[in-house]
């Protein structure tokens, strides 16, 4: 039974490794540690942002969460139901409640399918509506994303990037989902179009009451949109905090480095020393804390032991020993 107070999506210990194969018969020689022990929740009607740089595992998390990739271990509860245990048939039925919108507006639409066929596909798979009913719903959706019925019968290549994203959103909303994973939906768009799409997403969320998992690397966008932010680095969740708190007072050294590195549209030179070093390879991640190779506060135990998650303030989770019980920052 759905419990209204219970978060819609609970991710516990999600781990995804990709095997590295070599040789004629594809022997496995290593693992890409894309995601390791990620845990967070998404409340109903809320927006959780998943941020990080390339290789942090945010896109993999999003896809594994929807079981578009098979997880190596961990659990994902969707409205109390364990997604990874579901049989294919029930899983397919569940899919209509959780959808995804993608980053690349040029690769996310089938170039050979007209716009209405694309949007209609969810309806064809999950409902038994008659063709006129489906058509009506497609018209409704096209209006919802502000494209209008003039878009019917046209093909993706006739539209701009921003318009294609709208089509993708309409497709995702066709089955009336409760949960939407947005995988960097505005990263490939110009600033002026980005604003339009963000407004659209916010409107839709307010109107339809959808929960959003917003994957992004642009912190300004995240700040505008998210209730809660989950910061990932090299497959680990480093910080999990309410959005405002994150920007006012970032706790984890990586979050601090990230925020310090973001340029502001304000003239004047910033004399900040950017964080040193590069992101290590996910095939051979550093032991202990993944960030220790670049952290200005690194200590011995950061290099050795796995780091537990601390909660120095209520609702603020940090994976850093600086915040262990008894430390001055706690």
């Amino acid at each position: 039974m759905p419990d209204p107070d219970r978060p819609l999506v609970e991710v516990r210990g999600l781990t995804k490794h990709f095997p590295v194969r070599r040789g004629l018969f594809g022997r496995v020689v290593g693992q890409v540690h894309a995601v390791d022990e990620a845990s967070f929740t998404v409340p109903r009607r809320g927006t959780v942002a998943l941020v990080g740089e390339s290789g942090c595992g945010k896109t993999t998390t999003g896809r594994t969460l929807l079981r578009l990739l098979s997880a190596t271990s961990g659990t994902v509860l969707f409205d109390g139901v364990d997604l990874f245990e579901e049989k294919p048939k029930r899983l397919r039925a569940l899919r209509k409640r959780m959808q995804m919108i993608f980053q690349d507006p040029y690769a996310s639409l089938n170039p050979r399918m007209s716009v209405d066929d694309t949007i209609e596909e969810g309806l064809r798979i999950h409902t038994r509506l008659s063709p006129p009913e489906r058509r009506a719903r497609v018209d409704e959706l096209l209006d919802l994303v502000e494209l209008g019925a003039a878009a019917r019968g046209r093909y993706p290549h006739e539209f701009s990037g921003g318009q294609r994203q709208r089509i993708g959103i309409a497709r995702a909303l066709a089955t009336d989902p409760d949960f939407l994973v947005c995988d960097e939906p505005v990263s490939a768009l110009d600033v002026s179009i980005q604003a339009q799409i963000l407004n659209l997403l916010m409107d839709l969320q307010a109107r339809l009451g959808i929960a959003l998992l917003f994957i992004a690397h642009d912190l300004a966008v995240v700040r505008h949109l998210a209730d809660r932010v989950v910061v990932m680095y090299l497959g680990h969740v480093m910080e999990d905090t309410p959005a405002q708190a994150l920007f006012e007072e970032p706790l984890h050294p990586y979050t601090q480095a990230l925020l310090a590195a973001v340029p502001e549209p304000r003239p004047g030179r910033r004399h900040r020393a950017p964080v040193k070093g590069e992101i290590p390879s996910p095939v051979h991640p550093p032991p202990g804390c993944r960030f220790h190779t670049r952290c200005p506060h690194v200590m011995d135990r950061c290099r050795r032991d796995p780091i537990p998650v601390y909660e120095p303030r209520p609702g603020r989770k940090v994976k850093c020993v600086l915040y262990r019980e008894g430390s001055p920052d706690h």
Partner: protein
Amino acid sequence: MLLEARHLSVQFGEGPAAARAVNDVSLSIDAGEAVGLVGESGCGKSVTGLSLMRLVESPPGRITAGEVRLGDRDLLRASDRELRAVRGQEIAMVFQEPMTSLNPVLTIGDQLTEAILLHERVAPEEAWTRSVAMLGEVGIPEPEDRMLQYPHELSGGMKQRAMIAMGLLCRPKLLIADEPTTALDVTVQAQILELLRSLRERYRMALLLITHDLAVVAETVERVYVMYASRIAEHARVEDLFGEPLHPYTRGLFACLPGRGRPGERLQVIPGRVPDPGHHPTGCRFHPRCPLAQEVCTRVDPPLELKRPERLVACHMVAREDAPADAAREDRAHA
């Protein structure tokens, strides 16, 4: 005045379907100065950068008008030999995708030494030593080892540093950087921008930074040209531009930045979208999307005029003023 481009026009294709990617663009860069060229995709900024060194692929592109003066030479009319001497030596260029800008079948060392040997008569050993030194200067650890590696063995940030190193080997007077950090992570971007800043200081090098990222431009350059639909819409010093943008497009652009709105509120938008390069509206290119558009805007393309001291704006609706309101501007610059 180190480099001056005047009335540059570039078109792609021929006949009635030709697309004017760059239309009557003029810009200037002083020695040691950092200038930004900002615009959204499709505005023609990359083509402008390429045409400064006559790198536009022709066909289908063609520089139809204008001149690019470097010192007393016009680069657009120079001979191939003269141009080759300029490229790499006096002007260097860095591109967006480090993955495709470096030759994947040559080692880093080969590519760097080639850049030197093309322009200077030095012994290969000297070219090698200088390359190693330059790699160190751009912040690549263990440069001698890197010289023997292939591009695919380097990370994105490293590749971009290597590209910058390649560009700087002959101590050019001007570096044109076309979206140098767009493909990089934000922490790496900060490192690269810091690197560019320190290199500019050290070598008194001018920089033309082409990007769509207003924040990057704000932190890096001294003067900014804003391009829209193949023309310059506005030109000002960076403090003036960010403090008080005049052109409606610039204002709209700033207004719709996510950082400007309050969290959770709707963002301001510029309605409509950027016109295709082949189908610019008549009159002012921006008029279909402009909140201030009047009848004259649909007919007459506004010229780029000096509306304030040291500020050029191409808009009928922006009035000419002679005395800037200093105090008010200072306040707005810190808003």
